[in-house]
């Protein structure tokens, strides 16, 4: 009788809405707390990173052009999809060493995080924008716009809430992202990708690479089509000279050790645009 042998999931990359293996053909293994192999996870290469940026760039303008209301609904849809996969995430987090109670809490918080940012989609412009009383007959206003393509180093702890706390504030305003995740947190990141793939988030808005963050960091930092990087997730020991190359195209570099709901995190990936027009007859 068949059916007794479980079918294990293949952990692959998430690029442009699809789940390809790394073009390098490489994988790395992730073991559970007992030392048993959980999975061989795709190890992304420089070329995979470039593909992910290409997808993120192509998706950026269409995503930003959606109405704020629509982006809010899609983020809320992510929360719905996460809710329906709670049990799976509890099992996953337990397998990588999170105790049952913390795992449940982390998932509840992660769902709430999507809901909180979903609600911001059509509100932050009113809080952060302004009409400016210039000295002259001009209508002058300032509106926030997304920065563009954002590279995110996924925090390793907590793997789920940590990544979602960076992801949701970046995409709610119309940015698209390329996430680089490593080690145990790779499993969480890829599974979050599977949630996003079924949540009406358009292909390319979120791309998730798993591999060695130290290997991929230079490509992220030096890529001329990446507008901003969130390096809050890098380990404390990382040599900051590795980040210097971000200046090659004046990237916005964000490093903020905040894991709560935060309008500041949302603001980190916004540009302020000011428009002048004469008033007259």
């Amino acid at each position, binding site marked *: 009788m068949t059916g007794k042998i479980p079918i294990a999931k293949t952990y692959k990359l998430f690029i442009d809405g699809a789940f390809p293996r790394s073009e390098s053909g490489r994988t790395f293994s992730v073991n559970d707390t007992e030392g048993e192999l959980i999975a061989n996870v795709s190890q992304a290469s420089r070329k995979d990173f470039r593909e992910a940026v290409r997808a993120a760039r192509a998706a950026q303008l269409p995503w930003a052009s959606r109405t704020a209301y629509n982006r809010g609904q899609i983020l809320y849809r992510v929360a719905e999809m996460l809710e329906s996969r709670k049990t799976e995430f509890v099992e996953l987090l337990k397998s990588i060493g999170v105790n049952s109670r913390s795992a449940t809490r982390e998932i509840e918080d992660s769902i709430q995080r999507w809901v909180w940012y979903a609600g911001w989609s059509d509100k932050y412009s009113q809080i952060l924008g*302004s009409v*400016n*009383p*210039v*000295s*002259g007959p*001009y209508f*002058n206003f*300032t509106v926030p716009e997304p*920065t563009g393509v954002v590279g995110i180093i996924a925090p390793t702890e907590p793997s789920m809430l940590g990544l979602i706390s960076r992801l949701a504030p970046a995409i709610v305003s119309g940015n698209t992202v390329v996430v680089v995740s490593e080690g145990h947190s790779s499993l969480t990141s890829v599974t979050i990708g599977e949630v996003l793939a079924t949540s009406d988030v358009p292909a390319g808005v979120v791309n998730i690479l798993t591999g060695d963050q130290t290997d991929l960091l230079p490509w992220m930092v030096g890529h001329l089509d990446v*507008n901003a990087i969130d390096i809050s997730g890098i380990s404390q020991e990382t040599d*900051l*000279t590795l*980040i*210097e190359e*971000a*200046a*090659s*195209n*004046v990237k*916005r*570099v964000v*490093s*903020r*050790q905040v894991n709560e709901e935060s309008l*500041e995190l949302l603001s980190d990936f916004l*540009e*302020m*645009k*000011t*428009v*002048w*027009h*004469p008033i007259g007859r």
Partner: protein
Amino acid sequence: MVNSNSKGGSSLEDFGIEYASAIESTSLVNIKDKYGLFIDGNFVDSSSGKSFKTLDPSTEKPLSVVAEASSDDVDRAVRAAGVAYEKYWKKMPGADRARYLFRIARHLQERAREFAVLETLDGGKPIKESRDVDLPLAAAHFFYHAGWADKLEYAFPQRQLEPHGVVGQIIPWNFPLLMAAWKLAPALACGNTVVLKPAETTPLTALLLAEIIRDVDLPPGVVNIVTGAGETGSAIVEHPEVNKLAFTGSTEVGKLIQRSAIRRNLPLTLELGGKAPHVIFEDAALDQAIEGVINGIFFNQGHVCCAGSRLLVQESIADNFIDRLQKRIELLRVGNPLDKNTDIGAINSQAQLERIDQLVKAGIEEGAEVFKPSCSLPENGYWYPPTVLTGVQQSHRVAREEIFGPVLVVQTFRTPEEALEKANNTPYGLSAGIWTEKGSLIHWMAERLRAGVIWANTFNKFDPTSPFGGYKESGFGREGGMHGLAAYLKNSGGRS
């Protein structure tokens, strides 16, 4: 200067109009033989004894000798700022900081003419610009920010913020006093103390501002002004006790400063170069658009980071528009910056003149056609005539690199989509201009242009209430408005 015109039909002489020169008097200005550094409330010599000359670029005659701050001098200035922060500024109620800023604004208004003349002498810009733009705006910046000093909690509700402490600021030579105002006013309003370095070719108005700062009894060390070139700037950037950096200048230097700031996880704002598209649609109000384009590129000799240096004109009106533009350029008066009639003054320095000349030559080599009016230029001093390059391709250096001079590059387009594609095809993103009578098209373009400041049916307008700053390689952070305050505050107990 009156231009003769080879094309016929549009010179001032043809209209029977001649401008008698109207030279602004320099009697108000008392330039000293030499200037020291302004540290801890006093003017002091540099520790190395080194100094440098500052010239009038319209005559090449030396105006004065200015102390060159060594790294030891910068260290003294930073320490003075640190002491002043702890001793006076940190403890002072916002309302009192405001009073000092209001005083500075008033003194600037009172001595505006003197400042305007000095700005024109040291930098070469036309007196009508220093008088009507630089000075009123500089005073307005202090006045505007003075009012914020005791209202910061209204700007950032629900946040616990505090000043950074000592702020290092480096400013360029194109708007010497105005950039000092843009930097100092918000920094002081938010409760920081400052070490400011003006550019080496234009130090005099910042040093005159130091006199005002002393006259209004600002506590010693709250503002320190150190003069010098790149090495002095590096000493500020690398100083371990500077808590935040703000730089306005070239993208090249901005990137070096960003590298240093990243290594040390230091808060930074950058206002860098630009290559602004100025887009003219076929239904634009053409007379106004011509004036807008002229102002966009020839204001301050084109030494403007947000200058409208790439003209994108719709193909259906291109020939007519360029013809009218050239006729208008024939009417521009290039010459003595102190003449109240002068439209285009002197190029700020020999080095800048060489850079402009080299880039225009590169443009011609790559196939551009060049138009220059028939005006003659003074024999001494640094001068470049207003210039238009047509037949320019996107790949040409003159279409991609910032020229920072009175040189307009022309390209054409057929559809709004093509205009947008060309406009955004640049690593820069500081400003952009749009001219059309169609409101929906203005908003469609304004929404899609990747630039921090969009001027629609106007250009080169500035105001202290209006946030200014770039996208992409034009920098990050804003100056002016409520948004500009954010750069000078941090979360209590932490960075950024």
